């Protein structure tokens, strides 16, 4: 695997005058591999944005160095960097009149001359970039009138118009609703697979990165950066370790954090498929520990579009999950 960006004993953080530099995490070595969707994941405030800023050349590292295509990052001019790395930020564009097309067109500026005149090629690249993110119909709109999801697409179109092998995105999913997050991840995966981009994005949304990224860079304040494919990191217990929040328990089977339960309310579910999954979730939300041991006091089965609750000799049928859990609540309170 070819690595496009390599960090060597990199130390990032802040240095205030006459004080010891404050490192966000111990110095580290890490590589960004070509043709992969890499997620930089960690809790809020861990230093994800600083790391992205450092790699994009916006922040000077406190120690160590970065190489880009085997040359040190420092040896590139701003103009050269503009054709190698593009960024998508959480910064808002404040101008009230700027048009979507003009925002995407700035992606071509590194290639245009002094007057920023767009030639036929530039125009077709802008058009293609808008199409790739599904924003071609927004092209005449004023940027401030767009929704958060649309703005994110337009900024990605700008990055695509910039035509760089590497795209860095800082918290691209932060302001999006759930379907838009999924759509965005789909888009990023697509760009990696079909358009041979190398993408690094940061996120604090563990669920999202576990479902979408090819590789994780796991950060937490003052911990060494861990890296690997998501599944391996889960199995090695690193996810739980890096995201540890008191009172939360990482369920490696589900791949998500769950509220710890006392564990005395046990219930057996013998239903498969999508019904089984959502039934299980409803029960867990109510504080039940779900298993498949049919010797439990409560056993729930599913058949003929009915939820069947067996409690010893009593067998009750329910038409939906809501009436089932209401009934369980009643049992509990008695």
């Amino acid at each position, binding site marked *: 695997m070819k690595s496009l960006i390599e960090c060597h004993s990199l130390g990032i953080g802040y240095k205030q005058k006459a004080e010891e530099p404050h490192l966000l995490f111990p110095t580290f070595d890490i590589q960004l591999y070509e043709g992969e969707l890499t997620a930089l994941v960690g809790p809020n405030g861990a230093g994800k944005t600083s790391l992205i800023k450092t790699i994009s050349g916006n922040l000077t590292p406190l120690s160590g160095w970065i190489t880009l295509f085997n040359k040190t990052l420092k040896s590139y001019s701003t103009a050269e960097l*503009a054709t190698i790395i*593009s960024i998508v*930020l959480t910064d808002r564009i404040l*101008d009230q009149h*700027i048009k979507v097309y003009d925002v995407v067109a700035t992606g071509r500026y590194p290639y245009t001359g*002094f007057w920023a005149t767009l030639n036929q090629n530039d125009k077709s690249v802008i058009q293609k970039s808008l199409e790739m993110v599904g924003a071609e119909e927004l092209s005449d709109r*004023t940027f401030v009138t767009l929704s958060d999801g649309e703005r994110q697409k337009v900024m990605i179109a700008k990055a695509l118009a910039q035509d760089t092998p590497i795209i860095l995105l800082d918290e691209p999913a932060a302001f999006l609703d759930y379907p838009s997050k999924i759509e965005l991840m789909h888009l990023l995966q697509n760009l990696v697979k079909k358009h041979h981009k190398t993408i690094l994005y940061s996120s604090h949304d563990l669920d999202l990165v576990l479902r979408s990224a090819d590789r994780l860079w796991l950060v937490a304040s003052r911990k060494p950066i861990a890296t690997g494919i998501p599944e391996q990191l889960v199995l090695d217990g690193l996810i739980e370790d890096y995201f540890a929040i008191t009172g939360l328990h990482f369920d490696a089977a589900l791949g998500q954090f769950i509220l710890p339960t006392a564990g005395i309310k046990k219930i057996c579910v013998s239903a498969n498929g999508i019904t089984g999954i959502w039934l299980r979730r409803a029960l867990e939300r109510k504080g039940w520990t779900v298993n498949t041991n049919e010797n439990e006091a409560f056993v729930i089965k599913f058949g003929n579009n009915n939820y069947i609750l067996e409690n010893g000799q009593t067998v009750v049928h329910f038409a939906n999950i809501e009436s089932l859990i209401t009934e369980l609540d009643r049992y509990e309170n008695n």
Partner: protein
Amino acid sequence: MKNTVSNTAKPLIFAWLVGLMLLLFVLNLFFGSVIIPVVDVFRVLFGEGSTNQTESLIILNFRLPQTFTALFAGAALAVAGLMMQTLFRNPLADPSILGISSGAGLGVALLLFFTGNVSSQTFASVDIISHLGLNMAAFLGALAVLMLILFISNKLGNAVSLLIVGIMIAYVAGALVGLVKYFSRKEDVYAFALWGLGSFSNVGNSQLPVFIISISVGLVLSILMMKSLNLLLLGDRYAANLGLNIKLSTIYIVIITGFLTAVVTAYAGPIAFIGLAVPHLARSLFSTADHKILLPSTMILGACLALFCNLVARLPGFDGSLPINAVTSLIGAPIVIWFIFKHRNFTTLES
């Protein structure tokens, strides 16, 4: 939101504006506080003899230079305002925001103070140095502040801090002006107050070429910043990632804006409003943020507004002319309010 101005309509609007500017230019020559028959104005302009000596003097020595001054000062202030608003990403920024016009004011106040107190004559009586000296003092004051701002922006390299420092410098210069005025003679304080009201009639025919050439150089340089200004709209980090050298562009923009403001203030006094309002009019009119369109259109619109104000200030019936600063605000403010109501896409600041 609907796109209010189609791309094909833009050149048409621009052509209309140029036409309007030419019309206002001509009207400025034909109308003034002294009524001169249209036929006579033609005769004077096209050099046919047999004209009244006084009329010829009024048109060639007063109205013509005044009209040119209004045209170039309007264009310069409008473009300077546009560049400040883009650089600071602040719709309330204008050419005076860096404290440059306050510096000019300080220069003038000091000149009045020294000619008054040192040579123990009132400034008004020192005819030889009057206009030229005033211009030089204002220009040097503005230049001193510009140098200070450049020195600071080179150290800071950050637009927000620069904005605050500029405003602070304006306060300091304003306070010094206050002190100087306090110790000046009554006549000099009055002369300073008159200067502060602004006037397009201080540039005589002899100084006109210098004025026009200086402003033209500034305007051409501002056009060269088009690409940088467009990138700055996205914010510093995006602009830097797209290959812009933020620090250098900031310095260039400050130099060009400072130079334009210094020249205009030196010759016409601190003229308010045009620099603040015209960029907003241009953005609404063309519904764009692209400086390729905004730079030329703010120039033309700024010239139009200044010419219109100059026309109103010298309407027949008034004895002499009204102070230009009062006219720019009295006429400009309602126009801008009307525009905001008409083009609702000029919305509030990002919350």
